[in-house]
C-alpha cells in the first residue's frame, strides 16, 4: 500500500478509448438526441455490444448502465481486477469519460439500472435469477430495469412514502403514485417501494419488483424536463395493482427487521460516487470548452489586457473539479476496499454536483453571449441545462449534508 494516483496501463487504455469515443461519436449526436427526447435503440444496441467487446468486462467499467456495477448479470470483473479490487474506481473513471460525451446516454443504457443494486442486495437467489436473466440476451430487443421510490409527496423524506401495500391471498395489492422515475415506462420491471402502514415509518416499508403488464399498473405522464431530455422520466400509477407474493423482494422474513428501508438506502452508497463522476464529466466538458475558447480568442489571437479575472475563474473551476474528482475516487476506492463509505459517497456527490454546476455557469459566462445563443455553442447551453439535476437526484445537496452531519456528530439523530 502506498499513496498514489496513477492509473494502471489497462485503466489508461480504456479511459483513452472511452474518451475518444465520447468526443468523436457520442458528442456529435447529443444535441439531436436532446431534441428527439431519446437515443435511438439501434445506437444503444451497437454501443452495448461494442462496450462489452472492447472492455472485456463492461460491467466492471460501469458502461452497462447506471448501477450496473452491482448487477448480477454483468460479466464478472476479470481476475486481475478482483485481486486489485478496483471495480468501483474503474466505474467512476469510465462514467466521467462517458458523461463528457452525453450524460443522458448513461441513463438510457439498457440493463437493470438503479433497480440492480436492491435486487442484488436483497433479492432471493430465485428472484435474482428471474429478474436479471432477461438482460442476458438482448439481441431480440433492449430491456431496462428501474427504481421507483419518489412520490409526489415524498422525495428527500423517503420515510414519508404513502404508496400502500396490503396482502390479499397470494398477492400484494399496491395503491399510489410514483413520480420522476428514470426509465420507469420502458422498464420490464420496477423496484417499487410501498408501506404497510405509514405510522410505522421505515419499519413499514416493503420493496416489490413490479413487472410490466401487471394488472393495475400503468404509466402516467412522461416529464418534459429542463435537461437530460434524452432520458425518460415517468410517472407510475398503481391502482389496485396485484403483485404476486413471490415478487416481494427478499421474501417476507426479510422485513421482520429494518431491512426494508435499508434496501432503499444501500443503493445510494454505490451510486452516489457514480453520479458524482458523471457530474464531473459534464463540468469538465464545459470547463474544457471555455478554456479552449479563451485560449483561442484571447491568448492566441488578440491579447486583451487585464483578463486576470477570467484566468482566476478558469483556475477555480478546474481546481474544484479536480478536488471533487479526488473525493469521488476516494469514495469509490473505499467501496472497493469494502470499507463503509456513506460519508465519503455523500461528500463526493455534494462536491461533484456543486463543482460541475459552477463549471457550467462559469463556462457560459466566460464565453459571453456566445455561450447562450451562438449556433456553434449549443453544447454549452445544453450542459448548463443538463447539470442542475445532479444536485437534486440521488439525494439533494442538502440531503448529502445531512448524511455527512450525522457521520460527523454520531449523537445527532435528526434535525
Amino acid at each position, binding site marked *: *500500500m*502506498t*499513496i*498514489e*494516483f*496513477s*492509473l*494502471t496501463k489497462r485503466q489508461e487504455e480504456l479511459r483513452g478509448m472511452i474518451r475518444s469515443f465520447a468526443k468523436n461519436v457520442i458528442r456529435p449526436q447529443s444535441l439531436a438526441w436532446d431534441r428527439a427526447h431519446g437515443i435511438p435503440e439501434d445506437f444503444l444496441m451497437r454501443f452495448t455490444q461494442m462496450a462489452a467487446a472492447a472492455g472485456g468486462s463492461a460491467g466492471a467499467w460501469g458502461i452497462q448502465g447506471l448501477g450496473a456495477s452491482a448487477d448480477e448479470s454483468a460479466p464478472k470483473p476479470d481476475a486481475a481486477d478482483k485481486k*486489485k479490487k*478496483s471495480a468501483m*474506481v474503474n466505474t467512476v473513471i469510465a462514467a466521467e469519460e462517458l458523461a463528457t460525451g452525453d450524460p443522458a446516454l448513461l441513463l438510457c443504457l439498457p440493463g437493470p439500472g438503479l433497480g440492480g443494486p436492491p435486487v442484488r442486495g436483497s433479492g432471493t437467489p430465485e428472484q435474482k435469477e428471474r429478474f436479471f436473466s432477461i438482460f442476458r440476451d438482448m439481441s431480440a430487443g433492449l430491456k431496462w430495469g428501474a427504481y421507483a421510490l419518489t412520490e409526489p409527496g415524498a422525495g428527500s423524506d423517503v420515510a414519508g412514502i404513502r404508496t400502500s401495500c396490503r396482502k390479499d391471498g397470494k398477492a400484494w395489492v399496491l395503491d399510489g403514485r410514483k413520480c420522476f422515475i428514470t426509465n420507469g415506462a420502458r422498464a420490464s420491471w420496477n423496484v417499487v417501494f410501498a408501506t404497510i402502514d405509514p405510522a410505522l415509518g421505515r419499519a413499514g416499508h416493503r420493496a416489490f419488483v413490479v413487472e410490466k403488464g401487471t394488472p393495475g399498473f400503468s404509466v402516467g405522464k412522461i416529464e418534459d424536463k429542463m435537461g437530460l431530455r434524452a432520458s425518460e422520466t415517468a410517472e407510475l400509477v398503481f391502482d389496485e395493482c396485484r403483485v404476486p407474493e413471490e415478487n416481494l423482494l427478499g421474501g417476507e422474513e426479510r422485513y421482520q427487521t429494518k431491512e426494508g428501508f435499508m434496501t432503499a438506502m444501500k443503493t445510494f452508497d454505490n451510486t452516489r460516487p457514480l453520479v458524482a463522476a458523471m457530474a464531473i464529466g459534464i463540468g469538465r466538458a464545459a470547463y474544457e470548452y471555455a*478554456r479552449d475558447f*479563451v*485560449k483561442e480568442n*484571447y*491568448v492566441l489571437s488578440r*491579447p*486583451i*489586457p*487585464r*483578463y*486576470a479575472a*477570467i*484566468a*482566476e475563474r*478558469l*483556475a*477555480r473551476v*478546474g*481546481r*474544484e473539479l*479536480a*478536488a*471533487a474528482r*479526488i*473525493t469521488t*475516487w*476516494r469514495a469509490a*476506492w*473505499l467501496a472497493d476496499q469494502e470499507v463503509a463509505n456513506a*460519508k*465519503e459517497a455523500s*461528500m463526493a456527490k*455534494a*462536491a461533484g454536483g456543486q463543482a460541475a454546476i459552477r463549471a457550467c455557469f462559469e463556462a457560459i459566462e466566460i464565453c459571453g453571449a456566445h455561450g447562450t445563443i451562438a449556433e456553434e455553442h449549443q453544447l454549452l447551453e445544453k450542459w448548463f441545462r443538463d447539470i442542475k439535476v445532479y444536485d437534486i437526484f440521488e439525494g439533494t445537496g*442538502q440531503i*448529502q*449534508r*445531512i448524511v*455527512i*452531519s450525522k457521520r*460527523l*456528530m454520531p*449523537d*445527532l439523530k435528526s*434535525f
Partner: protein
Amino acid sequence: MIDFEPTEEQTLMVTAVSQLAEKLRGAIRRTEEERGLSEETRKTAFEMGLGGAVSVPESHGGAGLGLVTAVLLDEALAAGDPAAPFALGGPGAFASAIAELGTAEQASAWITRLSAHDRCGAVAWSEARPNRTRPGLSALATKDGDAWVLRGEKAFVLNADRADAFVVFAQVDEAKGWSGVGAFVVDAKADGVRVGARKSTLGLDAVGACDVTLEGVRITNDDRLLGGDEFTKAALRFFVKEGLKVASRAVGLSQSAVDIALEYVSNRRAFGKPIGHFQAVAFTLADRAIDIDGARGLLRRAASLWDAFAAGTAQERDALLTSAYAIAASLEGAMRAGDDAVQLHGGAGFMRDYPVEKLMRDAKQLALCVMTKEQADQLAAAIELDMPLDPALVLPTPDLQAVFT
C-alpha cells in the same frame, strides 16, 4: 494504481508526530507567548526526523523519504499547532531551496551543516516593494573577480532571527528582468549581513519574520546556486514544492479547526439543543469536511506526482498543475475553516480562552507564505492555457503579473 493508503512506515511516523502534535496543541498559548518552540520540543522533533530534509534526496544530504511523506508529517504536526512546522530546528525551507537549486555537493554540505535541533536555515526571496525602474529583484549580485558581492534588502524572511545560513535570491543580470535572477548561499555570520528586529505578526507567532539587509556581502562562486539547466524552472519547482508543504499545514489547521468546532457545537446548547443539531451549524461543518477531503486528496496527489516526476514516471506539467490546485484549495479551505470555527463558537470564539481565534489568524498568515492562492490560480491558468511559463508570471514576484497583461 489508485491507492489512498499510506505505507506502514509512513503510518508509524505519522502516529509518532501526531503524539507530539497533541502535546503542542495543549501548549499552543505558551508557544505563542514565548514566540517559539521550547528547546526540548525542537530536540524531540529533530529526533523524529522533522525539521530536517524529509523529502530531499539522500544524494543531496536529505532523508530521501519523498514529498508524500513530507506532506503527511507536516499535516500531522500542524494539526497540533500550525506554526510548529515553521519553528523547528534544522535546515527547513533552506534545504528545499538548496536541494532544488544547488548541486548535490552544495546541498549535502550545507544541509549536513544545518542538521541539528539548534540550527536553522532560511530563504530570502521577498522584497518589501517592487522595483519601479525595471522588472526583477532590487537586491543586486555583482561580479567582482571570482567572487560575487550582494547588496540590497530582503523582507519578511521567516526564521531570519535564528538562521545560520540563507539562500538569498538577487538580480545577477539587470537587463534580463525576472529571467536574470540568481541565488546564493549566505552564511549568517558573513560580513555585511544584518538581520532586522523581529516583526510583530498577525499569526504564526512561534516563528520570527525579519528584514535582512545585505551590505556588500562577498560570496565565492562556489556558493552560487545555478539551478541546473534552467534556473527559473528550478526556482518554480522550489516555490511550488515548498508551497505544498505550507498547504499541508493549512490542511492540518483546517482539520483541527473542524475537530475543535465539532466538539464545541456538540456541547454548547441554545434553543433547547446542542447548536450542532441546527442545520445551519451542521451543514457549515459538513462543507468544511468536504473542503478538507478535496484539498487533502489534491495535496497528496500533487506530492505523489513530484515523487513520480523524480523517478521519471510523471510529467512536470501535471505535477505543477495539480500542485497549483492543491495549494489554492488548501489555503482557501483553511481560511474558511478558521473563520467558521470562530463563528460557530459565537462570542467565545473571539476570546483567547479558546484556540480558534489563533487558528483563524494562523490561516491568514499561512495564506501569505511562499505562494498565495491568487498566485497558484494564475499558475494553474497559465499552464492550462498553454502559456510559456515566463518567470514574471509564475514566480511569486512582488509585481506578479496577471496571465493576460
